[in-house]
């Protein structure tokens, strides 16, 4: 306890530095994955993607980022077991941040496929097992999290498959795909705006002192969906004005309709990514902040401070601006076999899945969900060629990242403990 009183501000500053380092890494690498399907479909320039990402990552983090943050902050470790030595939790969270940040930096210089979420969860489990004991880990929560890593890409794939089939049935298979596309496009946009805002608003804005009941939430979500649809309708109208697509280039016409819609899906995806992945960086930071504020009260019930979520959002934007745009450009230029329709399906499905996961407080891997969603589109014959070897590399990233994050965190934990005590 005296330790916290003595070194409290030093530890908090360290936590902020490590937290920003971690979110910087997320912005540098992860955001590009989240928006890769939008940029890759050729309908969104890297510049627009970065502007969209900057706004909506930030919004996602501050509006919907609290649930996952809570899981990272106090869902993985049983706080009861360390209530008499809270400084261990501070060292541990610092170590976890540093470990995950370093591991991500190393992995991205080597080109290994890693997940920020897996790194931080592995790191937290690692320091807990090494520094406190096996029983300190809330294993039932961990098994839920691990299950969500399997379920979420499959769910994303399922939604993408159904969405792609519906587009094929309603638009591509119709007698005049271009007119069908113009007719149905606003409905798809309504769906995107409605579902994402409903999931976010429904009892999800407590930390902003906004608590709407079911009907109110639905009404607000419907309004947002409607606004999205109207803006989309105008954008589509502008993009296809004075154009008439004959029988020969019907499909080209459909893609012209979907291209302006991609920007909406990118917004949704950036929002979803912010709501889930920012927690990886700010969760541990929030835990340290909470402990220092209460002077070591572990089982505290402090509300999630919004400035921490905002700091996370800012870190992501920083990462994006300094390095992420390059990753985004590379991914965008390499993924060329996505058309606006298939890119739309993949991105929307991934965004919906991530937002839903965020509301159930599950830290999931946005990248893996994006991969799952793309596969779903592929299953509906929406993509020219998918290399299924990637499934192997995803498994590998689970097997390698979890222990790597864990061992690094354990090492940093003992180092920090040695320095401060």
């Amino acid at each position, binding site marked *: 306890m005296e330790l916290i009183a003595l070194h409290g501000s030093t530890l908090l500053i360290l936590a902020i530095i490590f937290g920003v380092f971690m979110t910087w890494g997320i912005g540098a*690498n992860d955001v*590009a*994955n989240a928006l*890769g*399907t939008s940029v*890759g479909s050729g309908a969104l320039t890297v510049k627009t993607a970065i502007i969209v990402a900057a706004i909506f990552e930030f919004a996602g983090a501050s509006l919907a980022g609290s649930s996952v943050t809570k899981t990272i902050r106090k869902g993985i470790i049983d706080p009861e077991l360390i209530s008499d030595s809270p400084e261990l939790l501070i060292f541990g969270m610092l170590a976890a941040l540093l470990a995950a940040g370093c591991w991500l930096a190393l992995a*991205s*210089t*080597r*080109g*290994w*496929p890693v997940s920020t979420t897996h790194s931080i969860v592995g790191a937290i489990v690692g320091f807990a097992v090494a520094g406190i004991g096996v029983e300190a880990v809330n294993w039932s929560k961990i098994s839920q999290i691990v299950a969500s890593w399997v379920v979420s890409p499959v769910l994303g794939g399922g939604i993408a498959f159904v969405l*792609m089939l519906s587009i*094929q049935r309603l638009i*591509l*298979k*119709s*007698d005049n*795909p271009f007119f069908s596309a113009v007719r149905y496009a606003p409905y798809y946009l309504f769906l995107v705006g409605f579902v994402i805002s409903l999931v976010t608003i429904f009892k999800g804005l407590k930390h902003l002192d906004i608590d709407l009941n079911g009907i109110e939430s639905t009404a607000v979500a419907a309004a947002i969906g409607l606004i999205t649809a109207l803006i989309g309708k105008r954008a589509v109208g502008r993009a296809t004005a004075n154009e008439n697509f004959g*029988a020969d280039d*019907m*499909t080209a016409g459909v*893609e012209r309709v979907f291209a302006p819609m991609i920007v909406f899906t990118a917004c949704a995806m950036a929002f979803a990514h912010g709501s889930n992945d920012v927690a990886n960086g700010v969760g541990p930071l929030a835990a340290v902040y909470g402990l220092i504020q209460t002077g070591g009260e572990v089982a505290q019930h402090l509300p999630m401070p919004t400035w921490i979520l905002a700091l996370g959002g800012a870190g992501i934007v920083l990462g994006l601006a300094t390095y992420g745009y*390059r*990753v985004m450009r*590379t*991914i965008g230029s*390499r*993924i*060329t*076999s*996505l*058309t606006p*329709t298939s890119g739309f399906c993949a991105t929307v499905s991934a965004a919906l899945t991530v937002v839903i996961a965020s509301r159930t407080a599950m830290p999931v891997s946005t*990248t*893996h969900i*994006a*991969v799952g969603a*793309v*596969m779903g589109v*592929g299953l*509906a*014959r*929406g*993509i*020219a*060629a*998918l*290399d*299924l*070897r*990637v499934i192997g*590399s*995803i498994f590998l*990233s689970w097997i390698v990242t979890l222990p790597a994050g864990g061992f690094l965190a354990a090492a940093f934990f003992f180092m920090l403990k040695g320095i401060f005590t």
Partner: protein
Amino acid sequence: MVIKNPLMQLFGQSPFKPLQDHFKTVLEAANEVPGLLLAAQDNTSNGVGESRDRIYALENEADSIKNELRSHLPKTMYLPVDRRELLVILDLQDSIADTAQDIAGMMVVRDMKLPDLMHAPLMDLTNRCVDACNQLGSIMEEMDQLVSVGFRGPEADKVMYMIDELNKIETETDRHAVNLMKILFEHEEEIGAVSTIMWDRVIHWIGDLANFAERAGNRHRLLLAR
């Protein structure tokens, strides 16, 4: 810094564009054949040689596209259509180039002059067989459109119709071939036994141009039928 991630690894190289490129090259070789046969009847052995060289070069080029394409199409590649069908189509396209090469080889190594009255029926057959190849070429040009609509819808109907056309052309080439064979055997004394046998072979090869095109077309039917 290496930028590599699961999302990027996920997207394989599309085989459809190289398949189209392959057939474009093959088609060029097939379209050399009428000129080659005309040169062979025209006593200008220079023309025959030049034509042969062009066909051989095109066949070589097609081969390297084929090998490149195959190496990018491992079993782990998931495509909107059956990967094996694409490989069969590739093989059939390749057979068209090989056949053109066989015809060119024969025209160069042997004096293949025919009586004048056979020239017109020979060119009728050849042109129609090349028409069949060109029809397959039009079908192949629709392929990228088909990919973007998932091989369904009005675009698929349009291609189905084009395949029907290809079948009709091939049936016509059979008629032309029978007609030409009849004339060939009627003049076998005048032409000579060995030449007759050689021409029998060449006429089959010319017919094969259309046969392979038709078989490739029928494989396209399977792509659409799934």
